[in-house]
């Protein structure tokens, strides 16, 4: 049982600050969740804290790869618009 951080992560550090298990780590490659420490917040009453505060859609997924905050769920920007941004971002980085 553990969540994972994807490449969408912008490194805002918010999940690291709120994780009750101190499971979020930052290394040279960015942010990651230590699978041994993460209990998906089962030990406390609120939903997974990293997923509650993360501002980026699809940055945190469960062990089946399902996003806790799917596209369109956080910013309210309809998916098509969001995808256009992602495409332009990719183009810009190519």
């Amino acid at each position, binding site marked *: 049982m553990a969540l994972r951080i994807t490449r969408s992560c*912008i*490194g*805002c*550090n*918010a999940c690291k*600050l*709120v994780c009750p298990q*101190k499971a979020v*780590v*930052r*290394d*040279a490659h*960015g*942010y990651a969740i230590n699978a041994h*420490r993460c209990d998906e917040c089962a030990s*406390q*009453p*609120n*939903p997974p*804290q990293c997923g*509650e*505060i993360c*501002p*980026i859609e699809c940055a945190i997924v469960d062990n089946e790869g399902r996003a806790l905050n799917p596209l369109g769920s*956080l*910013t*309210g*920007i309809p998916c098509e*618009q969001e995808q256009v*941004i992602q495409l332009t*971002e990719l183009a810009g980085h190519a």
Partner: protein
Amino acid sequence: MSQSASQSACSASLPPPNMSAEQAALVEKHPCFSKGAHQFARMHLAVAPACNIQCNYCNRKFDCSNETRPGVSSSLLSPAAAVQRFAKVKQRIPETQVVGIAGPGDPLANPNATLATLKAVGQHDDEVHLCVSTNGLELEDQLPKLLEIGVKHLTITINCIDAAIGEQIYAWVYFNGRRLRGKHAAQTLIDRQLKGLKLAIEAGMLVKVNTVLIPGINDWHIAELAEELQRYGAFVHNVMPLISDPAHGTYFGLMGQRGPTDEELAQARSDAGVSMAQMTHCQQCRADAVGKLGEQVNVDEIPDVVPAELTVAVASRSGEYIDQHFGYAKSFDLYRIGKAGVEALPARDIEAYCRGQNECDEDEAQLRMSRALHTLEGVDVLLCSRIGLPPRQALQEAGISVNTELALKATPEALEQVRQQLLEKSAQGSCAKECG
């Protein structure tokens, strides 16, 4: 960065009549609170990447006004690095009288980094004014600590005091372990903002309120908001135009919400001006702004401040070579290195940071790390043969630079090399000062 944070620093011409002498002095030197203070410079330190709300005029993926993506390391300036930056800027621009933390997220959603930075800046220079810009959500909880470290200037971004308006401005608010949405989110934020505003003013802080003017959403509400702010005793009100370029990728930008025209902005300021002194000279600066208002300074072009002396800790097993892994060191040999030479200081003992693979339980490792940090207080450079990544990071965040390149060299030789580097740097530093 959020628009509110980026536009945070800046002020008014008419001080309220009931201001105390102490407050008048606070106004006088702050370029963002007083027009007359423009000979003073301010600096924002970007140590606060996390945010606890989402505003519809902000895209967390971009550094708002200039669209550079905040990379993991660039957005995370450690408190130690931030203080170094301050020291550097202060040396070049001695008029730097104001140090603020405004983002790129919400400073009070990053309380440790924010407080540690301001505290260290205050210790470095006790004349400097410390200020913080926040959305106000965590203000009530963090206020005692802000007061304790001497923060006297505060900026709160309050866009409305009506949750029906707020739900059109805030996508969500993270509070007490939950992501709240809709009216409930807006109401929670507004309640906390007003409570924080009241407490901060009662505690004698000088509070500026920023409001982002969003046509059709809060423009008709500005007069009412300003009246309430006056009732609470806010010092000055800064009504800022919404910036909603679609290229910034914000909700408002992509959904076609336009910013105000110059006339609309002027109208809103005059509506608000009935109750609140309006700030007119704001240049809408960024979370990492440096310099006088309206003037940009590139910090990376300023040479580092070169200390006259360095305190160096050496991890040595043999007592003769740099041959100890940081994690197994039981004591450190200490030296002071200066222009004149190398002087040995009393060695310091610690309980070894790591006791071998199996025993390395993380909590205990953390405890030992904090002991190690305590032992190394006042040390500038650590020389050791090897060190793990987490302790290296922890030491660097505490302002200790770690050097493993001199591994297996004889200690006196290694120390001499560090001294040569110091001499070279100070030669460059003074040259840059004279020639630059």
